């Protein structure tokens, strides 16, 4: 069974972001970029399924500029077999991304598509669910456990109230939560080997997808910073202050 896994290049999560002075967005030039952490978990899960003999082939797909080759190489070094870069220099919103992945899925016919539950740049948490909707496939979102049988994916979902277990008929779309697995570190031999694996580049313009935006970002601003308050010396003083503020 083939697995399609999506990877997004985002500002590294250790990096403090800077908002452009003209309010047009967040500065990405000369900023450390890396694979969206939830997508790393997605790649790891796909590769583990291949190592267990459940998956036959893992294909990673990215949308973005040529720089996303680097993100795909990371996926290949983790163990994915090949990569597809849908190349575009414009920002792609979740619905368009889902339509792109739909086209790719119709082409390569995976039994399972694994996405990160959200990208840590726009935090939308939409693409996986939209893709499942477009394909009319079942969806397992925010999952922390996955078990694949011949025709089903048994998923444990992380919900606000606790955990939910669903059985999805394959083909299915799943999105990863943090506790699904711990992604491996890249070894040097694997990084070297990844350079030999194929990456196919596909200009977005060739996919005949309606790209008119549904959502226009008019402005990006910094939130009002919270001011630090006072230091207290001990528990007694803390509780006294909270009493005075009528909080306790």
């Amino acid at each position: 069974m083939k697995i399609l896994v999506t990877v997004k290049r985002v500002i590294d999560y250790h990096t403090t972001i800077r908002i452009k002075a003209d309010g047009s967005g967040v500065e990405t030039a000369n900023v450390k970029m890396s694979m969206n952490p939830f997508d790393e978990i997605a790649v790891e899960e796909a590769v583990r399924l291949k190592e267990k003999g459940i998956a036959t082939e893992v294909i990673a797909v990215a949308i973005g500029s040529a720089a996303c080759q680097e993100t795909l190489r990371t996926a290949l070094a983790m163990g994915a077999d090949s990569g597809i870069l849908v190349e575009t220099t414009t920002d792609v919103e979740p619905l368009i991304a889902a339509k792109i992945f739909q086209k790719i899925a119709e082409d390569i016919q995976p039994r399972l598509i694994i996405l990160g539950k959200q990208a840590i740049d726009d935090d939308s948490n939409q693409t996986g669910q939209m893709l499942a909707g477009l394909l009319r496939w079942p969806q397992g979102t925010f999952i922390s456990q996955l078990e694949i049988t011949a025709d089903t994916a048994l998923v444990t979902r992380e919900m606000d109230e606790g955990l939910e277990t669903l059985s999805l008929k394959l083909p299915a779309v799943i999105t990863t939560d943090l506790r699904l697995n711990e992604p491996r570190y890249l070894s040097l031999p694997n990084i070297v080997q990844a350079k030999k694996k194929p990456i196919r580049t596909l200009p977005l313009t060739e996919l005949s997808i309606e790209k008119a935006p549904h959502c226009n970002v008019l402005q990006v601003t910094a939130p009002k910073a919270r001011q630090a308050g006072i230091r207290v010396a001990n528990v007694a003083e803390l509780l006294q202050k909270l009493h005075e503020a009528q909080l306790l």
Partner: protein
Amino acid sequence: MTILLIAEHDGQQLKNATRHTLTAAEELVRCGATDGIDILVLGYQCQESATDAAQFSGVRRVLLADALPYQHALAENTAACIAALAKEYAYILAPADTFGKNLLPRVAALLDVGMVSDVIQVISRDTFVRPMYAGNALATVQITDAIKCLSIRSTAFRAAEAKTGSAPIEKITQVIANEQVEFIKRTVQTSERPELTSAKIIVAGGRGLKSRENFQRLEKIAEGLGAALGASRAAVDAGFAPNDYQVGQTGKMVAPELYIAIGISGAIQHLAGMKDSKVIVAINNDPDAPIFQVADYGLVADLFQVLPELELAIQHISLRPS
């Protein structure tokens, strides 16, 4: 054109998140964007939830889709039902929690429209503010589609209270089911403590507590204060606390009157989930911990001296009536 608000409910009544979403819907009505609010209650044997929904002021009518396929809020069934109803509506709103996040993007895709997640402010009938980058940037987003799908962040809108209404309840007879997904089970944590996302006080622990046993000492403190218990991702990853305690970018968004962070360093991913709290208390042994930059009251101290003192003091605290 009307708002369709998708209710999250427990079979008896609306959940708090739905009441916050209702306030956002009322703001849309106030800015002239729409002529009213319909609430859709999907579920099985959930007539009481519909009755509860009908009592909220400002609700024009309640649609009740009561059928077995909607029992566990499986998105495959509920999204299809909502999409079938959506054509008559200008807005589809749902809470931005795991219920709404799972469901609403699928609805949007079925309708071929975009969606704005985590709306924290209504600017006009088509323009909204939402956080990105773990709350470190705020985007003003204009949505161009005729049907606007919005998920609403509860912490940004108060909970609707007024129950002076008596909206009619209309049954939706169309039932959409599929064979693609089967519900197996749900494991819900039960607790005497208040729910994390609606608690007035939250006591939250981090990795600084060093062990599960130490984390569990917070339970007594939380109980003494009538508080909910939260945790940082680090504490959840270390196995000190279950996942549904997690506050932050990828966990729950909270904004209580009082947030007491114990042994939490304050990574931006955690701050994203709690920095809208009215008052923040930080207790940490590292004076340089970033949590102190957002704390109204900071206490630099060894946690293992502080915990027994807190436990003792809280036994003597008489709760302020609320």
